[in-house]
């Protein structure tokens, strides 16, 4: 009897602490499109003078953040251009174009390269990488070639930061006029990789394939050790880059890395689906992911799903990637503040379409990442409904 009681208690403990239920609300093309429209609405309503966007808002204090971050600025432009390209949304395009004014006022030119950096600030890899990606997306959305020189200039900055082993340094110092040694950018590396991969297709014959391949090999084989990650770093930007490089651009080390990346993103998705805003799940799983967290996992899973469909070496992952993607996307849709919930906020238009953290805060990337992630999820949902 005691034996059975101990087993029952053990099973209960396992259930509560190790394997709580994975809750995956349904995601449909309709509710995903609705969430995308609400998220883009938040970003579009945030257009401010000087080419800026609303950065953040705390609904508990009813305080609009006075902070700003140029990498996230580029991210907002990227998301809006993506939406414009995918759906032809004119309002999204206009809001994205608005951000160009701030971009052109904050460029640092040095020799043959251009970086996106505020006056007096060092040039950081991520801001320039993400701006280059956003401008490539602009090219896809509009066909306008007027920013091509800027795209090339930004990519030359990324290439100037690249070292002999393929890695890219995260910062260039205005004071020393050199790249800062041994300093890497958490997300900048993946953004640089995707930039090189995009430019290799956009400007064939200009030699962008070589830095892309060198960086891809570094990311696949050495980055986690060199940059100090114990587990594979869940880098959605590298996932985008791998999908862009495609089967022909990926060797076996990159494919092995894609598997590891899929694993860690899948784990993040599963753990997130076990989290809750209260009760024991809150105790054992911590705070549910922010909008940015939900979005980055969705973006990464969607990119790897596209790669798994294109590359037979990863075909065995397709179904699981789609399942995790649906789950995280469903949770993103469910946790977004809808128009009715927003009515209870001090400023409904700063709450509507947003994803808030537990302490009542949201910022531009909490909307931008889910926007991109849900856009990518639509492709998976469409493919599955076509089966």
């Amino acid at each position, binding site marked *: 009897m005691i034996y059975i009681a101990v087993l029952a208690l053990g099973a209960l403990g396992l259930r509560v602490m*190790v*394997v709580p*239920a994975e*809750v995956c609300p349904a995601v449909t093309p309709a509710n995903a499109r609705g969430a995308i429209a609400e998220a883009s609405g938040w970003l579009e309503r945030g257009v401010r003078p000087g080419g800026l966007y609303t950065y953040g808002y705390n609904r508990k204090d009813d305080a609009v953040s006075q902070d700003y971050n140029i990498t996230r600025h580029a991210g907002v432009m990227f998301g809006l251009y993506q939406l414009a390209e995918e759906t032809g949304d004119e309002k999204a395009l206009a809001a994205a174009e608005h951000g160009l004014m701030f971009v052109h006022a904050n460029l640092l030119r040095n020799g043959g390269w251009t970086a996106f950096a505020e006056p007096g600030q060092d040039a950081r890899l991520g801001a320039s990488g993400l701006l280059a990606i956003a401008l490539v997306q602009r090219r896809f959305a509009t066909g306008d070639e007027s920013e091509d020189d800027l795209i090339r200039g930004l990519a030359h900055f990324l290439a100037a930061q690249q070292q002999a082993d393929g890695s890219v340094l995260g910062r260039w110092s205005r004071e020393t006029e050199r790249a800062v040694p041994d300093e890497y950018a958490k997300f900048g590396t993946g953004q640089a990789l995707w930039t090189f991969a995009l430019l290799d297709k956009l400007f064939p014959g200009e030699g962008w394939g070589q830095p892309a391949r060198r960086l891809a090999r570094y990311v696949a084989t050495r980055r986690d050790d060199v940059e100090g990650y114990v587990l594979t770093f869940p880098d959605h930007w590298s996932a985008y880059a791998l999908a862009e490089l495609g089967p022909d651009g990926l060797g076996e080390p990159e494919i092995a890395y894609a598997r*590891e990346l899929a694993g*860690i993103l*899948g784990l993040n998705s599963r753990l997130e689906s076990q989290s809750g805003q209260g009760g024991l799940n809150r105790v054992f799983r911590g705070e549910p992911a922010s909008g940015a967290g939900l979005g980055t996992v969705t973006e990464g899973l969607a990119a790897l799903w596209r790669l798994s469909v294109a590359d037979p070496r990863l075909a065995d992952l397709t179904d*699981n990637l789609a399942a995790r993607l649906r789950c995280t996307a469903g949770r993103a849709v469910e946790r977004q503040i809808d128009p009715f919930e927003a009515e209870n906020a001090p400023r409904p238009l700063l709450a509507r379409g947003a994803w808030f953290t537990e302490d009542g805060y949201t910022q531009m990337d909490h909307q931008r990442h889910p926007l991109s992630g849900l856009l990518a999820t639509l492709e998976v949902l469409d493919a599955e409904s076509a089966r």
Partner: protein
Amino acid sequence: MSFAFLLVALVASTNPCRVRLVLPERRQAVVLGALIALGVAGGVAAVGGAVLDALDITPETFRLAAAVVLALEGARALVLARPAREPELHGLGAALVPVAFPLLLTPGVVMLTLTAGGDDDVALAVGALVVAFALVLLTTLIRRGARADALLAAGGRLLGAAEIAVGVALAVQSVHDV
């Protein structure tokens, strides 16, 4: 999961060496108990996928729970090489208690068969269980004595260590799986 992995995991979790130290001496009861345990474990594996669905747990996540159980069970075998004798039912009832339960249907065996069921590896799990339980039956051929018991205890510790290693491998797999 591969057959080889399941075999090592189920042998380690069944731990024939350790179990032999407390098995009833009636071989008929042991054989019958092994068959009962095989039937129950096979049934658990067969409904593994449905059970995990009902619990809203993906097989990839459930591996982590199995890993925790195996590691704890392995640690127990490593520390307590000589298990306490279990109460026995009379006659062939001993096949049910203690042979089938709790000696053969250990928490680790149940978790592994559920995991295998969730992965649609029911046949592999049953095959590995047949081998694991056959090893338990083979140990009944060992004549007990001070020297034999010491060797069985050492073997039990070794399998306990192997079970911990299997648990770690399963946890790593859970992290790497999508």
